[in-house]
């Protein structure tokens, strides 16, 4: 099965942009990104349904997060240094304005917000949060930094009427221990 795959992701697939786009350069418009993402979502959803699509986007975001961590951030063991780097990178790449509301690594809890989010800011309001890709992306970043599994859930989203996307991250191992104790 594995050898039949057409595009197993590697950072090389991003290609040599300088070579390939000597005149247009390394930027495009947000509309293009969203056009790509939401057409994907539409067709995938048609094929596999809503829940499966969310899962695919979560996993894709997770893969992106792992690769982003490896290639765009410098290794560090300091949580504050990690957050600073991440804030700078997300802002520089125009992904969003990351803010930290709360960090408690002893409890394995983080609350982050992303304003002006690339995925959803400005989208029409609906009933459901849409940033499943972001959830996976953030989850992978935190897991890569801590080395332990996390779950990330978007609790507020532009699409549900909020002006900022809020994500809550919880350490799986801490929660498991807590449950066992109970």
């Amino acid at each position: 099965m594995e050898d039949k795959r057409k595009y197993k992701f590697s950072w090389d697939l991003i290609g040599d942009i300088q070579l390939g786009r000597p005149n247009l350069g390394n930027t495009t418009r947000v509309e293009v990104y969203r056009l790509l993402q939401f057409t994907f979502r539409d067709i995938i959803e048609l094929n596999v349904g809503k829940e499966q699509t969310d899962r695919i986007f979560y996993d894709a975001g997770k893969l992106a997060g792992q690769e982003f961590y490896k290639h765009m951030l410098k290794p560090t063991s300091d949580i504050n240094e990690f957050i600073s780097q991440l804030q700078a990178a997300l802002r520089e790449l125009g992904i969003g304005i990351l803010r930290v509301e709360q960090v408690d690594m002893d409890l394995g809890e983080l609350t982050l917000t992303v304003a002006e989010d690339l995925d959803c800011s400005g989208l029409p309001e609906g009933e459901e949060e849409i940033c499943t890709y972001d959830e996976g992306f953030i989850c992978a970043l935190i897991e890569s930094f801590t080395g332990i599994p996390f779950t990330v859930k978007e609790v507020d989203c532009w699409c549900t009427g909020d002006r900022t996307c809020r994500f809550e991250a919880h350490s799986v191992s801490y929660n498991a221990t807590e449950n066992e104790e109970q």
Partner: protein
Amino acid sequence: MIDYEKNGISYIKKVLLGTAIPDAIPEEFLDSKEMKDIDETIRSIRTSMHAIGNGDLSTKIQGSGHTIGVIKNLQATLKTLTWQTKRIAEGDFSQRTDFLGEFSKAFNTMTIKLEKSIQEVKDTKELFEMVFTTIPDATMIISLEQGKLFDFNKAFCQLVKYSKTDLLNKTMVDIGFFKETLQENAWYQELRKNNQCYNTKINIVSKENNLIIGLFSSKIIYIDDVAYIISVIKDITELHKIEEKLILSEIKYRLLAKEMKALSETDKLTQIYNRVKLDEVLYNELERIGLSTNPIALMIIDIDDFKKVNDQFGHQVGDSVLIEFANILSQNIRELDILGRWGGEEFMIILPFTDLDGSSIIAEKLRKSIANNDFVGVGHLTASFGIAATKERTTPDQLASKADKALYEAKHLGKNRVCSYSLY
């Protein structure tokens, strides 16, 4: 229908503007989803804004929509600022806030300035620690109240011969630091009065019980609101020894100089002044005459027929006669008179503030004392006296010449007598 709308507007106004609001939506609107949404949104706005206004950022803001979203965004911003402020308090000055207009500018400026100030404090602290550690003079910090060692440098350990471990948590009393309580108390007193003292000499004791003379420069400082004394101690023990030696040698030198001067002015045989001193005194006295009208007399005394004494009894007896003769003169003159040996068997007496009559009386008294004396091994001897007196400025040579002339006359007239010569 009109009443329903009126009631609806009135209710919305009440929950939007009223201080106290009903606990629940009126029954008449329970079937209206729009009214229920409006009611929940307004209640959520009231609750969340009240909480945010009181600094409570933990409230879970209910509802959705643009206005609720803006409030959630405000809460998120405040939560982020709280988190960033905590980070700054822990020393993370990389925190910046953007897209909040003037506030961002003020916040970021504050963080940068705070970082700079703290860096300056750190630099100053590092500089102080560097100076404290490397300063070649012994330096210690002790608490003002208990005299407990707070910190000290290597030079201090070297001075007092204690190891760092020996000194940890010790007081000055524990290590018997001060040699003399009086000095210690005076030092504390000076510090309490003036907050500082410079170059105060204090005797201290090393671990090996050796006396160290320290020159203390001290100042009261405050660390976490507790008063401490920082002292730089210069070891002047060796210097003090050299100083003592110098003082001693200076005293010796002065004594020696005095002795040499006395020797240079004294006649070795008779132990009265010699001619050098007589010349000096006479010169000074005649100088003084120039400033006043007080008289001065000069008396030259010659032992009659002294040659015969030497010839008959030998030079040793002659010398004894000279000594005895000088003693008689010395014992019969006034305190202010200056007696000296002029040469051979000739003596001179300078009589300040004395005219010819006064000096003649003294000369006559001396002449009789000599004539009546029984010189050891020789018997009776006599002496001739030549006196010259003046009230005006003259030279030592002129005055001595006149006295000598008077002496010659006394000899010529038969010896054992007093002749005088007045210059006024």
